[in-house]
């Protein structure tokens, strides 16, 4: 049975300096409030993992929480570049950021291997590209049955995975619907997991098509209403596209970002802007 904690308790208990941390969410249900709580608690030397690092990862990187990023697409969706990520890669600001770069198919399969308890995954991927020359975690492998040349990528097993979902009950059973991305695999691949939810309810009403993470497969849940803003939570609120646009200007220079960052430090858990 998962523990029910506050967001601040959940981060304090589950996320440690130096951890490999995955905050997953594919445009939908991005655990933004949890990412900002990590900033507030000043975690350092994290290896951040995510298929689509977007503005909450830009914030974590700009705040100096990360020393490495494992990813497949880093941008501000529909807007453009992540300026804090760029500044870290191009100018090592505020601290140098190592990168381990994959494709979406590769990252998705790495989580699948992690969730399956396997050491690696096999896919048809990366063929002919320059990625294997730069990324040590992409290797050729020969099929033992057909002799075909394929690609192997190692399992991802984060120390902690954090995702956001719509609901949980008091036993920590989690219900998530709409675009589910790679969240199930990321949670099952991790040593520990924290699920922030829009609401904790007495009883989960079954919902067709919804994904259920049983409470015994989750370490902790925390109720964080609007915890995915400015991304969206199907059935609860829409994506705040203006906030993504606004982030472009905030993140463009170090001084503006610094002002934003000092604002985050002063806020309580759960506030997003």
């Amino acid at each position, binding site marked *: 049975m998962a523990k029910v904690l506050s967001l601040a308790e959940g981060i304090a208990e589950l996320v440690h300096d130096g951890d490999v941390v995955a905050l997953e969410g*594919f*445009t*939908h249900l991005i655990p933004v409030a949890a990412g900002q709580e990590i900033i507030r608690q000043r975690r350092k030397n994290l290896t951040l993992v995510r*298929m*689509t690092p977007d503005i909450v990862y830009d914030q974590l990187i700009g705040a100096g929480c990360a020393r490495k990023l494992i*990813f*497949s*697409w*880093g*941008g501000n*969706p*529909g807007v453009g*570049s*992540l300026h804090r*990520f*760029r500044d870290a*890669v*191009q100018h090592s600001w505020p601290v140098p950021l190592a990168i381990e*770069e*994959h*494709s*979406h*198919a590769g990252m*998705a*399969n790495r*989580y*699948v291997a992690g969730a399956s308890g396997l050491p690696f995954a096999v*896919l*048809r*991927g*990366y*063929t*002919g*590209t*320059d*990625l294997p020359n*730069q990324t040590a975690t992409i290797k050729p492998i020969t099929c033992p049955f057909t002799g*075909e*040349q394929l690609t192997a990528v190692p399992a991802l097993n984060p120390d902690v995975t954090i995702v956001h979902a719509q609901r949980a009950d008091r036993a920590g059973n989690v219900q998530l619907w*709409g*675009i*589910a*991305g*790679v969240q*199930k*695999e990321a949670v099952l691949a991790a040593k520990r997991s924290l699920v922030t939810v829009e609401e904790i309810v007495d009883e989960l009403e079954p919902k067709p*098509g919804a994904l259920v993470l049983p409470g015994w497969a989750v370490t902790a849940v925390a109720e964080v209403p609007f915890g995915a803003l400015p991304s*969206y939570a*199907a059935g609860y609120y*829409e*994506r705040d*596209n203006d906030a*993504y646009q606004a982030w472009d200007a905030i993140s463009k220079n170090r001084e503006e970002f610094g002002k934003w960052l000092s604002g985050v430090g002063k806020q309580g858990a759960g506030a997003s802007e």
Partner: protein
Amino acid sequence: MNYTADEMMSVAAARALADGMSCFVGIGLPSTAANLARRTHAPNLTLIYESGCLGAKPSRLPLSIGDGELADTADAVVSVPEVFNYWLQPGRIDVGFLGAAQLDKFGNINTTVIGADYADPKVRLPGAGGAPEIAASCREVFVVLRQSSRAFVERVDFVTSFGHGSGKGDRERLGLRGAGPTLVVTDLGLLRPDPETSELTLTELHPGIELAQVRQATGWQLKVAKDLAGTPEPTETELHILRELKKASE
């Protein structure tokens, strides 16, 4: 009728998609073109987005690849591992529709870094996303991007997604199953790989565009097809629907 170069590009890109096809859609220009096609000549075009939305029928252009609108209107919403492993990888999808930051004369795509040194790039771009496997596994690939000598280069700084490598036969040698890029749509015209060499060759010019303009906007010695054709102008209907679509998305 007046129209912009970007509108011509979106219309030309939409026309390339035949009714009944399945299309793996990248965000931005490819998504605009695919949604225009579905509203004009190709109502049975199946749109697949890497967020796991199969058969999405959005009423407005999605700003991101995982907008709620895509999930709400889809035939099915599947996980990201499933969309790549079950739907893309076995070669079930007809066309992969991609954008690019840099494209070279053999249709290789770069969305990773500008500059020769990966470790110390001039510009860090977003990265691969789904593109390497889309370019590998779809039956064919269309690319849409604005043409300039900065974007159209002799050789990409980084091969994020493999096109035709260094020429004819490279895809076969690597065991790639799809045909790779068969069409590049720009704001100036259309390019297709030469059947003998796989080098991208100008096959159509958009109305009002001079050949010299296209050469100027290409970073290699552009070859021109012997039977260079002209793209038909956008029709009133195409422009009307494109503009309505854009308006609905604001």
